[in-house]
């Protein structure tokens, strides 16, 4: 049944697919994960801070992000960020923001909501006695968080964070809607140029499948290795 398929199209476009497309996808994933970790920790700390207003704002933010489809957020950010930039800087015309920056900001904002919930659960999984012991030794609130609570929480939640990062890796393919040539976008461009839709989309699926599977396997291995003995 594959007799009239041309799988050579894959070989011919490998350079474009991986050097351009996959590099973009991995860069976007890595930067988004780092940004979302930092921003997500902040939101989680806000929710746990005990200041009503801060907690309320953070909660509203998380609920909002989690109630919207990612594609919609990508769109909105792409169109809105230039105007927000204009408003913030007081410039006379909308600030020019590249598709990459816009999608990066979107993924950081969006994933931070999910990451923050994972972290909140991770922080709450630490027994109350630990921060009490740290404070009894004279550590301040921020020292207690930094040296006692967060290191333990991070270790507990690392597998879940990595799993969520694998989901993020797959989700970055949605930048397709901004016609950015990420891996899927590149595959799609080749597919349409050469009229080889089935071959290219099969190949793209196989690549996402293999990378995600290997990564998941790695996470499970890691999980077994760092499991805490209490």
């Amino acid at each position, binding site marked *: 049944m594959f007799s009239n398929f041309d799988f050579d199209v894959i070989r011919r476009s490998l350079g474009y697919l991986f050097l351009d497309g996959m590099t973009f996808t991995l860069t976007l994933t890595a930067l988004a994960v780092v940004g979302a970790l930092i921003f997500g920790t902040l939101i989680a700390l806000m929710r746990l801070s005990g200041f009503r207003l801060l907690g309320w704002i953070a909660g509203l933010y998380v609920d909002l992000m989690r109630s919207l489809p990612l594609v919609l957020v990508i769109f909105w950010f792409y169109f809105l960020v230039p105007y927000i930039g204009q408003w913030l800087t007081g410039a006379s015309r909308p600030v020019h923001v590249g598709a990459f920056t816009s999608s990066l900001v979107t993924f950081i904002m969006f994933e931070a909501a999910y990451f923050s919930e994972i972290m909140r659960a991770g922080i709450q999984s630490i*027994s109350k*006695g*630990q921060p*009490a*012991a*740290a*404070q*009894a*030794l*004279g*550590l*301040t609130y921020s*020292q207690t968080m930094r*040296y*006692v609570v967060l*290191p*333990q929480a991070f*270790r507990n939640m690392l597998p879940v964070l990595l799993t969520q990062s694998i989901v993020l890796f797959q989700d970055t393919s949605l930048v397709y809607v901004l016609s950015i040539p990420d891996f899927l976008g590149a595959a799609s461009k080749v597919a349409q140029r050469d009229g080889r839709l089935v071959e290219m989309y099969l190949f793209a699926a196989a690549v996402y499948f293999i990378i995600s599977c290997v990564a998941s396997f790695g996470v499970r291995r890691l999980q077994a290795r760092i499991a*805490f*003995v*209490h």
Partner: protein
Amino acid sequence: MIEINHIDKWYGSFQALKDCTTSVAKGEVVVVCGPSGSGKSTLIKCVNALEPFQNGEIIVDGIALKDPKTNLPKLRARVGMVFQHFELFPHLRIMENLCLAQEKALGRSHQEALAKSSKLLDRVGLKGHARKYPAELSGGQQQRVAIARALAMDPIAMLFDEPTSALDPEMISEVLDVMVDLAREGMTMMVVTHEMGFASKVAHRVIFMDNGEIVEDALKTDFFGSPRSDRAQKFLSKILSH
């Protein structure tokens, strides 16, 4: 050293402490006992402000806890506390457990902290365990590390919150031995415990609590000789009858 004046504490509508007043003088060892849920752990946690209280005042070494100018972390660094469940930091080695607060709260150099820690680990008989993680030690060993960790801060007083309640029976004495030594050296101590043997050996005074109230606050000899309240008599007869 520690003055507790008319403390009231509520958890929502439940009153955990009712008008508690007592004091611990410098060098004094005070044992707090009573049935579970009587408020004794809550009371001791109020002394270093780990638990807030609504009414009354606690003064530690001349510093009022409720005074907004009081730097609570700084005060807590000077009062050692040992918990029922040890609460060593599981992600840090024993040596790091001892050094962390010395460096971060007292600003000691790493060298200084290491030297102090080694000395105290030796003192509690755990010199060879410095590089282990808490989970590699037995309960009794962990609790001795916890005592060393508190002592490393050169505390002016030590608070013990049921330090042997979570231990297997054969490990209780190794922890009590360390505490008895401390008491004999003149450390100011407030100890919540059911270990009446410890109380009769080193305590100066015994406080008996029930239902959030201090029912009896007596010298050791009076308390074990003839407690004035029925409730204390009942409690003693229950735990001493075996």
